[in-house]
């Protein structure tokens, strides 16, 4: 009896969820078709779908460029961050030197630093990825340090008792133990890198989604703007999904 009631309950809730999403789409369509809002401000879902189909090529290339740039910044920054954090936990001298620098530089907002990127690094790939790399670096240094501190000392004692050298302890004990702790940081870093890449592309990113967005705005092609936003949402979802899957595989051993 109760189980039946519970499934009915779940079903009703699913139905509500679906109908709300459908209602929003229908309302959007009707409002634009009826001419309540000018297409300049809100193009209908059908015109956006049409545009996505017609300019598939441009959109895919744009997303490709942006993702490529984002990944370069993310990879460089992340690896550097993890490396420096490991070095700082390896040697107290490195920690004493690096830590105050990180503390001082941490609160400087990367979004504002994008203003310097082009002046310092030009409009090439370096200029576009530099700030993303920096932001990912800071996030990962801090979180990896924290995660290393949280590695249970029992693992280290066990390693030492079994005669592992410091290098082996790092590779075989600390790194695997730290991974679960930095998953959250990696996901934050990806989003940050994506935002930063787009912001730089607004000014200097020929070909990327940021460029498409700003072109849509300047030429008042609102459906391009919306299509590009939909592409970024899809990309974010895909990246987050892939990252979660990859990380899940890496930390499977845990439970």
């Amino acid at each position, binding site marked *: 009896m109760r189980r039946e009631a519970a499934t009915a309950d779940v079903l009703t809730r699913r139905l509500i969820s679906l109908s*709300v999403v459908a209602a929003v789409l229908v309302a959007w369509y009707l409002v634009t078709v009826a001419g309540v809002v000018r297409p300049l401000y809100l193009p209908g879902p059908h015109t956006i779908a049409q545009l996505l189909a017609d300019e598939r090529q441009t959109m895919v290339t744009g997303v490709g460029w942006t993702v490529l740039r984002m990944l370069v910044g993310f990879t460089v920054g992340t690896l550097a961050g993890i490396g420096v954090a490991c070095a700082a936990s390896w040697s107290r001298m490195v920690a*004493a030197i690096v830590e105050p620098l990180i503390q001082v530089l941490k609160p400087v907002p990367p979004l504002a*630093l994008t203003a310097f990127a082009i002046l310092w690094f030009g409009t090439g790939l370096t200029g576009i990825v530099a700030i993303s790399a920096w932001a990912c670096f800071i996030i990962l240094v801090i979180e990896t340090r924290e995660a290393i501190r949280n590695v249970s000392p029992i693992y280290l004692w066990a390693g030492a008792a079994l005669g592992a050298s410091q290098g082996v302890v790092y590779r075989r004990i600390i790194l695997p133990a730290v991974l679960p702790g930095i998953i959250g940081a990696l996901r934050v870093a990806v989003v940050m890198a994506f935002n930063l890449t*787009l*912001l730089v592309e607004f000014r200097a990113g020929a070909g990327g989604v940021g460029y498409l967005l700003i072109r849509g705005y300047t030429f008042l092609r609102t459906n391009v703007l919306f299509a*590009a*936003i939909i592409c970024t949402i899809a990309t974010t979802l895909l990246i987050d999904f892939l990252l979660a899957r990859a990380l899940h595989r890496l930390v499977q051993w845990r439970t």
Partner: protein
Amino acid sequence: MSRTQHLVYGAGSLAGLLVLWWLAASYRWVPYLTGPGEVLGVFRSEISELTDHTLATVVRALAGFGLGAFFGIAIPLAMGWKPYLRAALGPLVHLARPVPLVTLIPLFLLWFGIGELGEILLVAVGSFFILVVVTLEAIENVPSIYLWAGAALGASRGHVYWRIIFPAVVPSIIGGLRVAITFAFPLTVAAEMMGAQRGQGYYLWQMVMHLQLARMVAIVLLLTGLVVASDALVRAMDRYVTAWSERRR
């Protein structure tokens, strides 16, 4: 390594950074660099202009943060109270959440022009989603044992909600507020860089166009100050409001 050695290395590295900056600027190792002296000079001569733009940014960021935080806390609380509301709003929230905020800048410029409204709403959307995610998760993670204890002691549903669930999610909400407010200022500046007539971001982009490095650094330092100060403020509030919690800080 002793404590003094630790301090010496720390102080040395910070001093090293300053000296390196000064050397790189005075000997022009890097094109477009400015020294600490020039930045200080800007603070002395342009202080009224700098504060003017900073105030504009603060007003926008706080207005957007307040708006977004209010709805970002109220709506998840309502969703936790009424399962049907949760079913209705949940999918909408999850569909809209992954939008990278920066992509909304051109859209809001188109919709609301380059006045205050677009920037305030952008920050509101940003703060809203941070708090929605945090609050929803916190409500789900309230230990069931609290709820059982409440039910066993005969508490009504409303009583459980307001006396058990609500206090239990406050620490997480404050964590969300911290993230949101430290993000509110840079987000405002990012929006202002793309289109505004006042504010730190507007000033910053003007100075980029005129290659005024010292002024750029000065305004970014002020922005950093805002971030640090607001973070400290929320942390102080946290210590006061959640003094009861066992969480280590």
